[in-house]
């Protein structure tokens, strides 16, 4: 598993993809942070982080789109599948590699917040809560991206499909208030990533929300494994 993880991580930085992701992430987050805090005269970062979720919807598909789609297209998955490694460990390795890139960019962008200290006192629990929430939300987004990438062999399809799914998950809470059908509401509330995020922004550690993000991750990674098994047995 470690070999695949290493290889994936390397491939982000032997192609422009990893650099582009990090650069765009850091540039946009820096711009937004200054807009929400310095320019509006506040050191409250929670609204900044709420907006960063939408940046994730656009950027996370970029790092996950290649993971399985390209392997299928170039037939290199044949090497992985015929090697003595299990599909679940390959899926996990790819997930961890994409997540590493995301988490690194996020943590580096958090250094910006330190710069805010010269403008006023930062509410530490609230900030940590937001960062932690972003780590969790990112984790579930990456898992969704990995799953959708395993469905197709076209990386554009994978990217757009992931963006669409993530948008739906982000807007589920908005849709939820407009729809009257019980089952649809239940489903929407189950995938509603955004609504569970709120507690963290108050500086509270919401265990059930944390568990929710972890289980979303596990479910989508499990589905990615199933997709591979199904294809084999088809």
């Amino acid at each position: 598993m470690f070999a695949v993880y290493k290889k994936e991580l390397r491939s982000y930085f032997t192609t422009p993809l990893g650099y582009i992701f990090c650069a765009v992430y850091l540039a946009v987050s820096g711009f937004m942070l200054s807009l929400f805090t310095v320019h509006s005269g506040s050191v409250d970062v929670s609204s900044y982080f709420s907006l960063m979720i939408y940046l994730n919807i656009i950027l996370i598909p970029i790092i996950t789109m290649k993971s399985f789609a390209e392997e299928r297209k170039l037939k290199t998955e044949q090497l992985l599948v015929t090697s003595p490694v299990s599909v679940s460990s390959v899926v996990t390795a790819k997930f961890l590699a994409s997540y590493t890139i995301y988490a690194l960019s996020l943590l580096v962008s958090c250094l910006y917040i330190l710069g805010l200290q010269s403008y006023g006192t930062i509410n530490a629990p609230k900030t940590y809560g937001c960062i932690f929430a972003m780590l969790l939300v990112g984790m579930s987004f990456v898992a969704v991206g990995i799953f959708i990438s395993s469905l197709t062999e076209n990386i554009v399809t994978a990217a757009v499909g992931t963006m669409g799914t993530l948008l739906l998950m982000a807007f589920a809470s908005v849709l939820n208030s407009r729809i009257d059908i019980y089952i649809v509401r239940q489903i929407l509330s189950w995938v509603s990533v955004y609504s569970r995020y709120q507690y963290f922004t108050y500086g509270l550690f919401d265990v059930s929300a944390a568990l929710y993000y972890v289980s979303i991750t596990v479910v989508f990674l499990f589905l990615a494994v199933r997709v591979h098994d199904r294809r084999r047995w088809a």
Partner: protein
Amino acid sequence: MIQINNLMKIYGNTPALEGISFKVEKGEIVGFLGPNGAGKSTTLNILTGYLSSTSGSASVGGIDIYEFPDEAKKLIGYLPEQPPLYQDMKVSEYLNFVYEIKKCRLNRKKHLEEIMQVTKIHDVKNRLIGNLSKGYKQRVGIAQALVGNPPVIILDEPTVGLDPKQIIEIRNLIRNLGRTHTVILSSHILSEVQSVCDRIVIISEGRIVADEKTENLTRMTEDGSDYIAKICGPSREVAKTVREMNGVIFADPTGEREGDAYLFRIRSESGVDIRKPLFNLLAENGWPLVGLESVSLNLEDVFVRITDSDSRARARRKA
């Protein structure tokens, strides 16, 4: 070493394999021959655990590929039809990666060094795979299959798209591998498997139509040969006369002509040498024979032969 029992594979409603069984002994080089779409790659993909079969079983070294996939996969080095190469890796990085995912225990540096010597990719080890020529890529693919020194090497059409010199090199490489490994080599070129393999398994439309020692198959393709004859004379009468000869199966004008000579394709029954009687017959009629060459059979002809003799044998049994 390898045992395949009654393997079936159905894609949706289309059967790809309809019950394939064969065995490969340790140290054999077996050619797996068939036209495109016959089910060669499907069989090899099942044998290496990439696909599942609809029914039947496959085992390597006595280990079932479904029940103990990890153990069985350790015994196989596989080069799929399209070599599974990461274009953005250097050759040495790639082999190191393969070494790691195959959970190899041999001395890494020495082992990879040896493989690069054997496959002659030493001089490109620091180049990106994406920039290599097709021949080198193919060799890197074979090198990948050798990592971990597995006792069984499976190569799916290893010489497709290579130039003649590279083909000869790869064939020599395969022959050398055969001394220390059990090798399955798939191809749709008869002469290729004839020159390398000890035994040939021919598959057509998901069924095995022949499983023979190479010498036997070669004999089968040689006796009862086809000829192209260039004869000066009225084409229809010549064909009619030649057809009436003893031992001739058919004699048809090909429609081509060279100067005043017509070209005929003549097939004789196995074991009958028609060349001398043909010459005499034509001489008697005053039709000069200006050229006679034997045509070696291609895969299609062998198929026709084998399926012909198959149906003839069945008809005889019925009678």
